[in-house]
């Protein structure tokens, strides 16, 4: 894709991606246990502000990263999709924890078996719940992807 573009567009793209990864703001989508670890990641001890991410926006209109933190029930899935649709492009999704990624240990009538059936996911984080370090690793992975243009959907 990049090969066919001209010099100017690729340069603008790389500048835009540089800006995007430096300040990807998260939408608070705390659902369950993982949300508590997400709070811990943002608080003083782990200090997510080091990566330009200390702001978690309450409104999806101001966010470009959705961290799905916790199990997604079938009742919640339409809500999740609506919040995702309300986020402006370009946007990314981190599926935090085993439940969000695959339903975890709850393979039953109530849960969506993986949030990737509802929204496209960029990074999956393993763990139940993933510690702050795991989440930060996922965020840095995402930043790498955004920087290189790998994760930008057009």
């Amino acid at each position: 894709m990049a090969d066919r573009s001209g010099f100017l567009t690729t340069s603008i793209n790389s500048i835009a991606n540089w800006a995007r990864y430096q300040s990807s703001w998260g939408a608070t989508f705390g659902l369950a246990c993982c949300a508590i670890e997400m709070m811990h990641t943002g608080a003083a001890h782990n200090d997510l502000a080091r990566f330009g991410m200390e702001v978690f926006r309450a409104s999806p209109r101001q966010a470009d990263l959705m961290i799905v933190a916790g199990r997604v029930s079938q009742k919640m899935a339409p809500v999740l999709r609506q919040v995702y649709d309300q986020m402006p492009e370009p946007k990314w999704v981190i599926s935090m924890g085993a439940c969000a990624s695959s339903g975890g240990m709850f393979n039953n009538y109530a849960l969506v078996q993986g949030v990737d059936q509802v929204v496209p996911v960029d990074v999956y984080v393993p763990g139940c719940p993933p510690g702050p370090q795991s989440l930060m690793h996922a965020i840095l992975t995402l930043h790498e992807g955004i920087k290189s243009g790998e994760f930008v959907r057009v």
Partner: protein
Amino acid sequence: MADDVTIEDSSEEVENPTVPPSETERRQLHDLWTSGTEEPAWVVASTAEGAQLMLPRDEATAGDVAEESGTLVTDDRLYKDEAVEEEITILNMGPQHPSTHGVLRLQLELDGEVIRRVKPVIGYLHTGMEKTGETLTFLQGPTNVTRMDYLAPFHNELCFSLATEALLGVDVPPRAQAIRVLMTELNRVSSHLTWVATQGMDLGAVSMMIYGIRERELLLAFFEKTTGLRMNHNYVRPGGVAADLPDGWQDDVAEIVRAIPDGLDDYHDLLTENPIFLGRTKGVGVITSEECFAYGITGPPLRATGINWDLRKAQPYSGIEQYEFDVPLAENGDVYDRYLVRMEEIRQSLRIAAQVLESMPDGDYRTGDLKVTPPPRKRINESMEALIHHFKIFTEGFKVPAGEHYQAIEGPRGELGHYLVSVGEAKPWRLHCRTPSFAAIQSLPIMMGDQLIADAIAVIASVDPVLGDVDR
């Protein structure tokens, strides 16, 4: 906007709202922002709430109002006739809202800024844990229930384990009991710290969020060292605990007992006499003890109304009666009293932890009943029978005699009860969890009636609901 679709058409569509929309109609929907037209019937139909819908006031009878608010108690605070029709707004709060502590959804009827009616809608985190619990053995059960109230995992595990042990008739050695008391009381501290952090943030004191979690990291580090995980530990199991305390645990607990009261003093400086905090909490969200009885509200909200009821004193479990502690009480049953009760409970729990630190008995951390306890690691290497035994315990599980038992313990939010029915198999026939947050959510209409909308946030925070606990 296209001219061929008029507003008159939408009135016909009410007759048959399921007619699929044409492309023009879909585009028209995007013009609603500017066009000022009403939503077409198919939009209304596709987003209908069904039975969950809060009806407009002119369609709802007084009986409906009482039903929707989750109460049959005729209460004039919930319904004011003098409310002017034009000033009534129905506001939907949640399920995706930063101040609802999860995925709680409230439908609020507002008269200006005053809440007249509240309808809680829950189930957005329904995980089917009671069904999953029927497919797991009794030994695997704590894995399931620990994810229920994720701020109090040890309490869930302990409650399940106690219920299983009661059905089995197994006694637990003193060291295991002391470890259980230590971990659950530290867990009460960590749960209340999360509560004080989020309550502070909801009321505008964002620094409380940072402080509360700063202290909580200490506890989580100790939990991780002991159990291998920061949350969802699966540490307390039927027959004892999963592993002994790690080397040097005394230093960690001593540090926790020393450091957290310092933090508490900071919180008191920051909040207790803060005029903004007092204004937001005093006299807000009052509930009386009679209402608590009728709605099954236990724990700090009940004690804030002056009722001295703590299951650790009344129906002691796991040897907690050996330790000295006080049950903090308050009088008014408002948000501020619930705050004071919880803050003092943190100190009392630390007091118990300090006593456990001094009096930790020696001995085994698991019961000697070999049908429940897997053989020690060393024996597995030497003995074929021990290997088979180990294998059978972890694959088939142990059989529990038929019977039913309700076990209740004092969780951080109130009475946490597990109702276990066994039919003599290795898996429970039925696992039901009586969770304190479920009762608390039901009482929100009582606490919020006739308060300002800003107070709704304070009320939600003060009952400390955990939505995993509500929806299960």
